[in-house]
């Protein structure tokens, strides 16, 4: 009897806790899971398709596929092999992306602040709709608008910048051709990515805890000092995440850049000069007349772009999630 009791007093072992899901729950879980899997699989397939088709080009060129900035078909007459490198276009992608952020983020954050804290009620709703609609306008429209409407003005601004700031190397001008420059492409991209950054910024600004806002006002804060002390620290992560999403879009933008930028396979730091490019618009430029070997190189270029935008988006999501948890 007593030994029985002793035996039962074995050291405690944590129990395994399980729940038996109900049938409807199982079905729902299956549906949702497969939905989630589909997008993952699609993403994987696209990546695989690109690397599968472009592998040979990357293998042939090696690292110079990333760093080289020639894009030349083979010329059998003089025994010159094909040379494909996305270096110049990758550089151009990054330059236009950075320019788009420099112009676009301040405009977007300013718009979001205006909508959240300054706009009168009657203006707020229509403006939110307008900004959201801007996100849905096809990029060719931005491209055409940029070419015909923005460019003449931007050309003038570029000349001004050049006139007063040409001592800074990036504003230097070897040849006076101001149209179709990375500067103008950056402006068009900025306007394209502005809506998404505005939407996300507005969202995080709206979540600023009201008791902190009240605390600031109760201490004699002006609206602007309240925003600096409360809204910005709270919304910083969200704004950065939104900006990265915008950057992801700017890096992959094809048609708008193709319309307003003069594709030149060269790495030039002068952003006002009519010479630049980005990977996406290069692909669309070359795709029509490409032979098999060049097509492989274009696939490889696509793969590079795919990876770059994927990384940027991952970083964006990471930042947004990290700040959402805080």
């Amino acid at each position: 009897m007593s030994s029985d009791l002793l035996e039962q007093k074995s050291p405690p072992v944590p129990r395994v806790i399980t729940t038996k899901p109900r049938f409807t729950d199982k079905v729902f879980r299956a549906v949702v899971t497969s939905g989630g899997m589909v997008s993952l699989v699609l993403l994987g397939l696209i990546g695989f398709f690109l690397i599968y088709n472009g592998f040979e080009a990357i293998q042939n060129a090696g690292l110079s596929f990333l760093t080289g900035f020639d894009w030349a078909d083979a010329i059998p007459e003089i025994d010159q092999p094909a040379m494909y490198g996305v270096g110049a276009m990758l550089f151009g992608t990054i330059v236009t992306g950075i320019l788009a952020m420099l112009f676009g983020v301040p405009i977007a954050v300013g718009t979001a602040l205006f909508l959240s804290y300054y706009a009168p009620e009657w203006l707020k709703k229509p403006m939110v709709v307008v900004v959201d609609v801007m996100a849905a306008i096809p990029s060719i429209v931005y491209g055409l608008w940029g070419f015909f409407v923005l460019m003449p003005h931007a050309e003038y601004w570029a000349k001004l910048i050049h006139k007063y700031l040409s001592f800074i190397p990036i504003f230097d001008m070897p040849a006076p051709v101001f149209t179709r420059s990375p500067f103008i492409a950056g402006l068009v991209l900025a306007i394209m990515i502005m809506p998404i950054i505005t939407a996300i910024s507005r969202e995080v600004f709206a979540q600023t805890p009201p008791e902190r806002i009240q605390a600031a006002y109760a201490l004699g804060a002006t609206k602007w000092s309240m925003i600096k002390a409360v809204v910005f620290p709270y919304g910083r992560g969200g704004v950065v995440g939104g900006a990265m999403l915008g950057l992801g879009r700017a890096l992959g933008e094809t048609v708008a850049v193709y319309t307003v930028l003069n594709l030149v396979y060269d790495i030039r730091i002068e952003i006002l000069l009519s010479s630049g490019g980005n990977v996406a618009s290069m692909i669309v430029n070359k795709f029509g007349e490409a032979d098999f070997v060049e097509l492989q190189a274009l696939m490889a270029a696509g793969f590079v772009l795919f990876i770059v935008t994927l990384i940027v988006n991952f970083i964006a999501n990471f930042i947004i999630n990290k700040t959402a948890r805080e």
Partner: protein
Amino acid sequence: MSHQDNPNSTNDREANMDQKTQNQARDTQRRDATRRPVSSHSLADVANSRLSSVGVPSGSSTGLEARGIHAWFGSKHVLEDISLDFFTGTVTALIGPSGCGKSTFIRILNRMHEFIPTAALAGQVILDGKDVYDAGVDVTKIRLKVGMVFQKPNPFPSMTIRENVLSGLKLAQIKIENADELLESCLRRAGLWDEVKDRLNEYGGALSGGQQQRLCIARSLAVNPQVLLMDEPCSALDPGSTLRIEETIRKLSASMSIVIVTHNMQQAARVSDFTGFFLADGGPGRLIESGATNDIFTNPKQQRTEDYVSGRFG
């Protein structure tokens, strides 16, 4: 001197006070009154023990005055014809059941009411002889003179303890010479210095709830307000923290006018010199009775006041 119900030495704390105002003598006298050992805590006793020094305040010391205040949210009339004076060097408690408009009333005093889009008001709030709602008044200046402590402690989480205390200066763009001195004196007056003096560069959110609330008090002191409004400052805190904050309130009242909303009758009796009783009774909230705290708790003029303070409703 024996003093059972307050383990923290009030003497030490008072010795720390760097402000020597003329009110202090009177204040200390009042403290002595509170220190009488009170074993049976009937509200009347508690209020009585504070009475000795509180006479009728001299008319000249009126710092803040509400005259004929009405308030609406949309078309809902929530406050009707409230007139109440607040005297420098005293604590005024506002009591009454939930929803009778106490918060609305004190938010009207420092113009926080207008942040609610549907809010409207009538009447005047006179600060230093001028109506704070006059056209052309710089509202940020009003809020500097009339500080506020909220129900839920709300330090700025992105700022350190030090930055929190000094945040009012930054927010109102006030430049000062010796920030460190101000930092220390504010934290001392809020009764928090000893607990945080070695961790001034930690974030405010790392403190306990009671410490956070005292940090918020220190923060409002840094801009040197004449009036401090407190909306149920202890309702989210444990009894120990509550005691410390009451102690802080009593010390601060020497140099400013304090208005405290509380649901705790004991607290009203312990810390306040004057009490206003609000009641809404279905319609808009009204000030049923106001006067010396002692009178309100010992022989109120209105039956409803007596019912409320004796716990018969609310």
